[in-house]
């Protein structure tokens, strides 16, 4: 080629001969199948199929061994006239049951789970999740104010209900968010923290709170839903 290609210019026109109508605009979020790079492709059979088979066998064996060693519980026959003490829901609901200790049933049993489900479902449609850059990019003072304000409000709200399992993680996560703010010097971990986006911070907060509530409800609640050490769970006979 003797001539260099001229710089690309964006031209808008309704004349189909001057300007062709179809323009391919390749955006970063396009389907991977179109955005085909030089990737290695291998045959599904045997590579993927064998891995699936191995996974299947591994899980079956692991669960079978666990089922041989650990027994599922079976208490006495159901008695509508006698409530056991404590009476606990299955583990995945124990976080909710712990929440019941602090909030009325409408809030802990209906409102909060409902909000959680809705919040999860709308994640892919919320702009914040699609365009998130690291938390501390942009106007740092504004972000500092917002993070501080929201943390304070959440802390006051939940402390008002004396819900410490939510207050403590809120403060801890906020602390980590501010620790990341203090500049980019520091080790690999600090640099990793700096890159965390706001939606990731929020999800981390949610996971920590949910895990903490579930752990407390499972191991640290005894008769009358009182706080006990795990080894004191059941009243001595």
């Amino acid at each position, binding site marked *: 080629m003797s001539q260099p290609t001229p710089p690309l210019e964006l031209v808008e026109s309704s004349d189909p001969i001057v300007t062709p109508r179809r323009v391919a605009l390749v955006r970063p979020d396009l389907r991977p199948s179109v955005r085909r790079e030089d990737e290695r492709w291998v045959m599904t059979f045997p590579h993927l199929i064998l891995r699936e088979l191995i996974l299947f066998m591994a899980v079956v064996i692991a669960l079978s061994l666990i089922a041989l060693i650990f027994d599922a519980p079976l208490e006495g026959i159901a008695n509508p006239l006698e409530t056991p*003490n404590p009476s606990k829901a299955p583990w995945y609901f124990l976080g909710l049951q712990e929440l019941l200790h602090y909030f009325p049933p409408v809030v802990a049993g209906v409102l909060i789970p409902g909000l959680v489900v809705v919040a999860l479902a709308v994640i892919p449609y919320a702009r914040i999740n699609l365009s998130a850059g690291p938390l501390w990019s942009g106007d740092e003072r504004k972000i500092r104010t917002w993070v501080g304000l929201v943390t304070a409000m959440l802390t006051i709200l939940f402390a008002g209900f004396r819900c410490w399992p939510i207050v403590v993680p809120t403060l801890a996560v906020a602390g980590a968010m501010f620790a990341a703010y203090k500049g980019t010097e520091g080790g690999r971990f600090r640099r990793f923290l700096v890159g965390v986006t706001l939606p990731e911070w929020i999800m981390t907060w949610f996971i920590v709170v949910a895990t903490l509530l579930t752990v407390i409800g499972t191991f640290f609640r005894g008769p009358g839903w009182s706080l006990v050490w795990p080894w004191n769970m059941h009243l001595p006979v």
Partner: protein
Amino acid sequence: MPEDRAKSRGLLSEEETRRDFLTRIGVGACVVTGVGAAFTLLDYMEPKVLFEPPTLFRAGNLNDFPEGTVRFNEEQKTYILGAAGGGVYALSAVCTHLGCITRYLSSEGVIACPCHGSRFDLEGNVVHGPAPHPLPWLEVKADASGNLLVDTGRTIPHGKVLKV
């Protein structure tokens, strides 16, 4: 023409064809069918006969309940109490928090729930714990000889003691 007559009566809009009209009717019929089917299904799922214990039961005689007595009927989940100053009233033993059965602790003079630590006084008022409402007062009736009839299906206003 029939279309012009229909238009002049305002039944057909200017642009709607016979096809559009029939489509509208067809879709409407499907919607009505769907809604009808949904309601029929819901009605089918609703049990019409319940084999649960009857709510009306006999609870002895007025004379069996001097002031300060607390008797617990396990099967009906009811406390029957002798009121201060004479008379009888009944409280539901089902905790208003999440439905566990409460227990009367005579040593402390309270009704306590084992599930989340709610406590009620002998008039059903919440004194401690997460229960949102007081224990409901249940209807108590007496016949001429003072035999008591309690109905767990009917609640009465708080404090309405049955006196002789």
